[in-house]
């Protein structure tokens, strides 16, 4: 979000409600990726840990930009307006997405799904009956998520795709069924 339209500088209540949602989306995504990085670190999967840490940093940066733009004295609590349907925010990776043998490509695949979900959420707000300033912001945010998705796709093309049997462990932590 780089531009600030006159309507948005009015900081209407609805606009603030929506931007609080946008902030929560970025913050939750950053926190989840940071948790994933810790989990991968603990399981000595350093390449994927580093990647999740990087993704967390990107999301934290997006959250920071929203904070800077809004200049809230304190972050407003989420209201029911603009709520997402799922239990967690649309850009938050599901907690059970991980495998201890996963590879960078898998991490990027997770990130891609999250970006696309966020894009879809923002597009739905942009297409809805929210005030014009909210719809404009939602359009811009959807565009940003689309750009992120394109970047991740490009990134995915540069890392090796996992070979068949990538999750086979000769000394598995579980007993064979």
């Amino acid at each position, binding site marked *: 979000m780089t531009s600030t339209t006159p309507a948005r500088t009015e900081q209407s209540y609805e606009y603030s409600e929506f931007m609080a949602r946008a902030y929560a989306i970025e913050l939750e995504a950053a926190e989840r990726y940071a*948790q*994933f990085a*810790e*989990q*991968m*670190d*603990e*399981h000595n999967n350093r390449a994927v840990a580093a990647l999740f840490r990087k993704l967390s940093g990107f999301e934290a940066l997006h959250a920071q930009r929203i904070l800077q733009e809004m200049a809230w004295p304190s972050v407003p609590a989420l209201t029911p307006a603009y709520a997402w349907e799922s*239990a*967690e925010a649309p850009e938050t990776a*599901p*907690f*059970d*997405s*991980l*495998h*201890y043998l*996963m590879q960078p490509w898998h991490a990027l695949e997770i990130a891609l799904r999250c970006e696309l979900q966020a894009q879809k959420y923002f597009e739905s707000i942009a297409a809805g009956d929210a005030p014009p300033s909210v719809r404009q912001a939602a359009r811009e945010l959807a565009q940003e998520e689309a750009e992120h998705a394109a970047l991740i796709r490009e990134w995915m093309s540069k890392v090796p795709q996992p070979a068949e049997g990538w999750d086979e462990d000769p000394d598995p*932590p*579980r*007993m*064979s*069924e």
Partner: protein
Amino acid sequence: MNAPMTAAALAAKDFKSDYKPVWCPGCGDYSVLSAITKALATLGLRPENVAVVSGIGCSSRIPAYTTCYGFHGVHGRALPAATGLKAARPDLTVLVASGDGDGYSIGGNHFLHACRRNVDLTYIVMDNHVYGMTKGQPSPTTEPDWSSKLAPGGTGLREFHPLVIALASGANYIARGFSGDPNGCAALIAEAVRHPGFSFVEILSPCVTFRPEQREWKQAVRPSPVEPTEDPARAARRLMTDDGFNIGVLFKGIRPAFSGAAAQATHAVADLEAGFSL
């Protein structure tokens, strides 16, 4: 719960210790840890005013991952330890962490009597229907037909129904959460801490290693279609049609919390110690 302190409010991260969890990647218990720390921050508590007591199992590692006082106790014995602590230090907010093996099998009897006593504790049970730490044995909540190398063809045993048992035994607050919704779990835990007496929060927490099929739980869980009730009979009727995937608060009782033990103590600690000899 004890009164929140007036110092600057803490964030969830302030309740996380420097020890990193060693659960399997993707384990639901990560979300429960996150929910607990969020709940404590929401409640405006401080780590030095909270104790987390546990037994044995994957879930029982939680005290070490918080900055609160912690006690990682004996298998199945988290509740007696927590009861003693709360009776001696009613000023502390005491959370108890357990799993379906630790809490319903080894500690099953303590569960009944903790409900009955109604001491002001919050009991969080991470239920994954399996003994994960010891490599996948069936637990009391395992489905009778779940077949594994350790129980070929399944146990054929009827599952334990924790919410039914909790209600029948006198728990004063009964809720169910899902670890895929850490914010929802945090809200349930915060409400449980605020509610007087013994609060029981069962959290469905998939074991991605020994029960990978539990990833499907995210499709099965749904918000409970009914509001919580204070009427045990009504709650019991609702449980008759519960399939184990309704999420939310089922019961909020009005029974006063037990609070008599400390006031009735007639011996000083030194007198009691004098009675022990090695």
